[in-house]
Each structure stands twice: as structure tokens, then as C-alpha cells.
């Protein structure tokens, strides 16, 4: 039957080649970080009704109790349950952290892109203005803006923080856009009639997002901490609103006493959250970066 094999049969349909992946899906994703973030966010935003204690209630005679059965994470110097405070405070802090970051990133991207796409003169103008803003003390701007916006609430606070902290990112965006703007796909989109925001959102942002990713993640941290600084100066959120920032600044006082739990838990949650966000950011960065090292 050998001869059958040597018959011209021409082109035949062959089933699609199945690709065996080297890496299982869970290795590609930072699964642990993603899970933690899900737990954290759902805990902070959905879990409040299920908290064991009222986070604002000061059981003032039970101050400084070490972690135990009643108080999982102990109590602070005013007898509040740290466990409950963390979830409750997380809601405010994460909202502010993320909202402020979104605002500052959005401003940074728009300003950076406008400057990057503009001609030399407009570019110089915008960049010098950015530098001038960079040189005005943040504190002054914050006080000024807060006064304009009136009574502080998480949204105004986010706006204030966001509006005062976009400058560095804008400068980086501008540099990136300068490199990207010569790409032909930008030209193509323009020719098809895409306007500035279309090009910015669909073509520029996906390409430079990786280079500002880390700055953006760190912005979340800065915003959370900045919120507590504002409270400290009397232009922050009302006192009864607990946030991670205010917990951290309270813990400064507990630093030298033996009440480690007052410092450790909010600290761990903040650092942990940021680690997770960084991890996810890193994953995104790697996914879009160009191939392997040549070294």
C-alpha cells in the first residue's frame, strides 16, 4: 500500500493547530495580589454592616487593649476597635486614594498630551507653567483650593489632592507623547477624523500608561497620606470620619509605647494594598512591554 501515500492530493484543510501554553494561566496573573485586592475592596465597601463593633465608638476605658478575641486587632488609645476602624477607614481612604489619583492622572494625561502634541512654543509655555506650579508649595495650594471648595468631604478632598499633584506625571507623559506622536497610527487616526480626545484615549494612553504606572500607584499612597495631613491642619475631613491616614497619624503617638498593634495593622494594610496594586500594575506593564531583554 506504499504507493497510496505517493499520490498527489494537493492542498487539504487541516485542523487549526492547537497551541500548548508553557505557562498555566495562574502564573501569568498575580493571583495572590488580585485576590487580596478583591477581598480588601469588598471588605471595605460591602463589609461595613457586618463589622463586629461600631468603629467610631470610643470605649474609653478599654483603651490600648492588645489584640484578642473581643478586639481582633486590639483597640487604639481612645478605645476604638482597630479591626472595625480598618475596614471602615479603608472605605474613605481607598476612595480618596483612588479618586484623587484618577483626577490627578487625568489632568496629567491631558496636560502632558496637549503639551506633547503641541508645537514648540505652546509646549514650552505649558511645561514652564507646570514647573511654576511645581514650585508653588503644595500646602499653600491645598489651603487655597480647600477654601474655594468649601466644607470638606471625601470628594472635595480628593479634588484638592488630585488638582495639586499632577505635575510630575504630566512631565513624563509629555516626554512619552513626544516620542509617540510621530507614529503613523496617530496620523492614521487623525486622517480618519479622530479628534484629540479620541487619539489620546485610544492611541496614546495605552502606549504610555506603562511608563507612568508606578507613579500612578504611588500617587494612591500619597493621596491617602495627604488626607491625614489635611486633617492635621484642620482643613481635612470631619474628625469622626476615620481613615487610614488619620489612623496612621494617631499611631505616631503610639510609636514608642508598647502598643504595637496601633501602628502595625493600619501600616500593614496600607503597605499591603500598595504592594498588591504595584504587583498588578507591574503585570500590566510587563504584558505590554516589548519582548525580551537583549542583554
Amino acid at each position, binding site marked *: 500500500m506504499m504507493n497510496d501515500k505517493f499520490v498527489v492530493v494537493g492542498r487539504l484543510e487541516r485542523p487549526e493547530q492547537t497551541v500548548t501554553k508553557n505557562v498555566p494561566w495562574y502564573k501569568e496573573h498575580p493571583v495572590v495580589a488580585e485576590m487580596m485586592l478583591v477581598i480588601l475592596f469588598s471588605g471595605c465597601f460591602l463589609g461595613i454592616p457586618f463589622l463586629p463593633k461600631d468603629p467610631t465608638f470610643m470605649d*474609653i476605658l478599654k483603651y490600648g487593649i492588645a489584640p484578642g478575641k473581643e478586639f481582633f486587632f486590639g483597640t487604639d488609645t481612645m478605645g476604638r476597635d482597630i479591626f472595625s476602624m480598618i475596614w471602615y477607614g479603608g472605605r474613605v481612604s481607598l476612595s480618596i486614594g483612588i479618586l484623587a489619583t484618577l483626577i490627578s492622572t487625568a489632568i496629567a494625561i491631558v496636560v502632558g498630551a496637549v503639551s506633547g502634541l503641541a508645537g514648540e512654543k505652546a509646549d514650552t509655555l505649558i511645561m514652564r507653567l507646570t514647573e511654576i506650579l511645581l514650585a508653588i508649595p503644595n500646602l499653600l495650594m491645598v489651603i487655597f483650593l480647600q477654601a474655594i471648595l468649601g466644607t470638606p468631604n471625601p470628594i472635595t478632598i480628593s479634588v484638592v489632592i488630585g488638582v495639586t499633584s499632577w505635575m510630575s506625571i504630566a512631565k513624563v507623559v509629555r516626554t512619552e507623547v513626544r516620542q509617540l506622536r510621530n507614529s503613523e497610527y496617530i496620523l492614521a487616526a487623525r486622517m480618519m477624523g479622530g479628534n484629540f480626545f479620541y487619539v489620546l484615549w485610544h492611541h496614546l494612553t495605552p502606549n504610555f500608561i506603562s511608563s507612568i504606572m508606578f507613579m500612578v500607584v504611588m500617587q494612591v499612597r500619597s493621596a491617602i497620606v495627604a488626607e491625614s495631613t489635611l486633617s492635621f491642619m484642620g482643613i481635612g475631613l*470631619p474628625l469622626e470620619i476615620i481613615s487610614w491616614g488619620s489612623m496612621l497619624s494617631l499611631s505616631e503617638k503610639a510609636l514608642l509605647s508598647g502598643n504595637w498593634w496601633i501602628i502595625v495593622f493600619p501600616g500593614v494594610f496600607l503597605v499591603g494594598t500598595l504592594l498588591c496594586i504595584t504587583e498588578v500594575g507591574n503585570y500590566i506593564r510587563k504584558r505590554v512591554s516589548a519582548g525580551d531583554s537583549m542583554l
Partner: protein
Amino acid sequence: GGKASEEKAQTKQETKETNNTLVYASGDYTRINPAMDEHGEINVLLFNGLTAHNDKNEVIPSLAKEWEYDKTSCTYTFHLEEGVTWHDGEPFTAEDVKFTIEAIMDPENGSENAPNFEDVKEIKVVDDNTIAFTLEAPNVAFLDYMTMAVLPKHLLEGENMQESDFFRNPVGTGPYKLEKWEDGQAITLVKNDNYFKGAPNIDKIVFKIVEDDNAKAIQMQSGELDLAQLTPKDAQNFKDKDGYTCYDMLTSDYRGIMYNFANEYWQKNKDLIPAINYAIDRQAIIDAVILGQGMIAYGPLQRNIYNNENVEQYSYDTRKAEEVLVKAGCEKKDDGFYYRDGKKISFTCNCKVGDQVRVDIAQAASQQLAAVGIEMKVEVPSKIDWGGQEAFLIGWGSPFDADDHTYKVFGTNKGANYNSYSNEKVDKYLLEARQTEDTEKRKEAYGKFQEELAKDPAYTFICYIDANYVAKSNISGISKDTVLGHHGVGIFWNVAEWKMN
């Protein structure tokens, strides 16, 4: 390794040398200007007043060796010590005294201390060593106010009393003189060998600028400081440490909720203040906020000899609080709060920015009030509207004459009456006490004043706060029993007698 050991040797050497140097953790100074600024620990080391206080806070002679009082003309005549010289060698005279007090009184200069000398009618230099003050009305506390530091006329005449360079190179008559001032770091004082009361024992005193509470505690531990006022929590760590001595000093420094009667709210709801007074568990607040380092407060003079214990103390009693409310026509609604005329009993208490103890007290009190059915919101505004606010968490305290911080605080329209409190009887008793020298009479007047104040409370008194000083054990002479003032100021009153061994 080499460097480290070198450094160790250096620290050792430093300790040897500093054997006679005392390093004190101080707040920052932008200038040393006793005439314009009220508080200032360092003033007492560099300057003297005509009078001074002893360990019981009684008035004793200082630059003035003796004085007379002429009742009819309300005139004090002071006889000054002779042969006293300024640190720069110039002689000290009555002209200097006149110059200083007039500078304070001059409204152009905007001195914080001006109210103390409101009633000075005339200052007369009799001769180089004699000076006479004529008052408009009798004022027993005047001698107290004459502890005011005297400044050298020859250096300050014609100078701007706010902006002069003198206040960064102060020259006084005090036991120590300024050696050098490093901005933001340290102010070094050396002893004045020509001090008219005899040279002090400790050679050098360094006011090291350490503003952060944690840093103070740490530097105390690392041995870089010899003396510091710490928070109660930090001070506790030194209780059983070798080589350190803790001084838990009593103070006349109290905290309370001040109701602003210029605000319509309290004009209408004045009758509810007793309910608030009853509703606060002061001991719990003291235990939690200041770790028990304090005392329950019910009046402004508890650390004073004229204290009257037999007044309504408003001890913690929630039942009574609710009774007051019900009597006043309030109704409790489902949300747990009382309402009067359909309006919730609710007000806002402001705290000063940056003072966490006050914030904590206010928050704790707020919660206790809520338990009874009164809402008190706590805010920390960046700028305080003294005329318009509803309430404020106030702190006062004078360790000295009972007149100080009562007359001007509770008297109608007086300088420090921030809440427009006005009670004729209170005014009367305060004036009475001020104008008599007779201790018994004063005691009676102050007693009545306190009773009246308890009946018609201006504040809800909460607590007195102790000051926690920690010192190296080799320092002797710090008097434990003296009652200190606002913010624990006053520990250096007898510094000339301190020793280090």
C-alpha cells in the same frame, strides 16, 4: 568600626564636659521678647522682674528688694536692689523698669501682656533705685504682674519693640546669659557670675530645640537630653529606669468646654449647660486621654489656696443630666437625642489645630454626651471664629495669684473673656477679691465667686492636666511641689539653685 568607637569616645567626652551643662528640650523660639510674648520658659533664666514667685507661688522680692503700698493713692513704691548690672555690664536702674512697662502699655507695640497693666495710671521714677506705680483702682494681683521681666532701656530705646534685633541677642539681669543662638537647633546659656543673687551652680544650660514629642522621648533615652517635658505615655517608660527621675508636676492648667454666649444658641439654651456638666465622666476621660495624669475639674481655682470645695461639682450622673433636660422641657426622640421645640439639642465644639489632647478630650466628651442624648460635634477648624462659634475646648491656668486668669477671663467684657460671659455677681466678687489685701476677705470673695460660677457655669470644667518632666537623676534642686502654669511652664523658677553632680 574605627569611626564608631571614636564617636563613642566622643560621646563620653561630651558627657564629661557636659557634667555641668544641662540640656533641656525646648520648643522653638523665633525671638526672646518677654515684653511682648506671654509664655516663654527661657525668660526666667535671662531676665528678672521686680518680684518673683517662690515654691508656693507666693510673691517674693527680686529686683525690688522691698516695696510699700499706699492704699489711698493706690500707689506701689518699689525699692530696687543696688549694684545690679545687665549682662553687658551696664547698671540696672529704675529707668529701665519704667521703660519696660511703658513699652508694654504702648498700644503701638501690640503686646500680649498689655491687659495686665491696663489700670496703671502713672509710673514715676523717684530716683535710680526707686520707682512708683499709681493704679486707677486697687489690684492685689499687681505684685504678681510685676514679675514681668525688665528690659534694658539703653539697648532698646528707640528700637522697634516687635522687630528689634535685641530680641535675638537678649541682654538681661538674670542668672544666665546668652552665649549663642543657632537657629532651629539650640540656644546656649552660660551662667552669669555677676548675678545679684549669687552665681548659679550649673555652668551652662542649653535649650535644645526638639519639637516632636517622640523625638524628645527618644533623645531622653539616648542621653542627649537632661531634662524634658514628656507626654504622660512617654514619661511612664522612664518610671523605673535607672538614672532618671520623673517629676509629675501639678499644674493649674485645666481644660473645659467653653460656651460662647455671644452665640444665640447659648443665649437660648443656657439652662442646658448643667445637663452637660453632669453627663461627662471626667475620670474616664482622664484615664484614657492622659493616662490618669490629672485631676477632675469643677472650677478654675482648684490648685489655688482660695479654692472652694463646697460648690456644686457636677459629678458624673447621667440620671441627673437627663432630669435637667426633661425639666427644661426637652423630649427624647427615637434617635436617642433630646429635642426642644422640635429642635435637636446639638452644638459644635471647636478645638485648636494641632493639640491632640484637646481633640481627644472633646471626642470622648462628645461620645459621653451622645449617650445621654445631647449631640456635640467636634471640629478642628483652621481658623477660629471667636465671636461666632458655639463652643470651644478651652485651656487656662495660672499658678499664681487667684486674680490671674479669673478676673480677665470671667469678668464682663474683660480682655480674655472670649465667650462673652457676663454675671453681675461674678464681676462683683472678682473685683472685691482684687481690691482687698486681706486674705480672709479674699477667700470669702473667691469662695462666693466659685459658688456663683458653679451655679451659672461659663465652662464645663473637665480636668487638670499634670505636667510630666523627666530629668537625669544627677540633677538636684528641681522642686517637686510647685504648681506649674499653663502647658507646664515654670519649672525653671529656681534654676539658680539647681546642681548637677
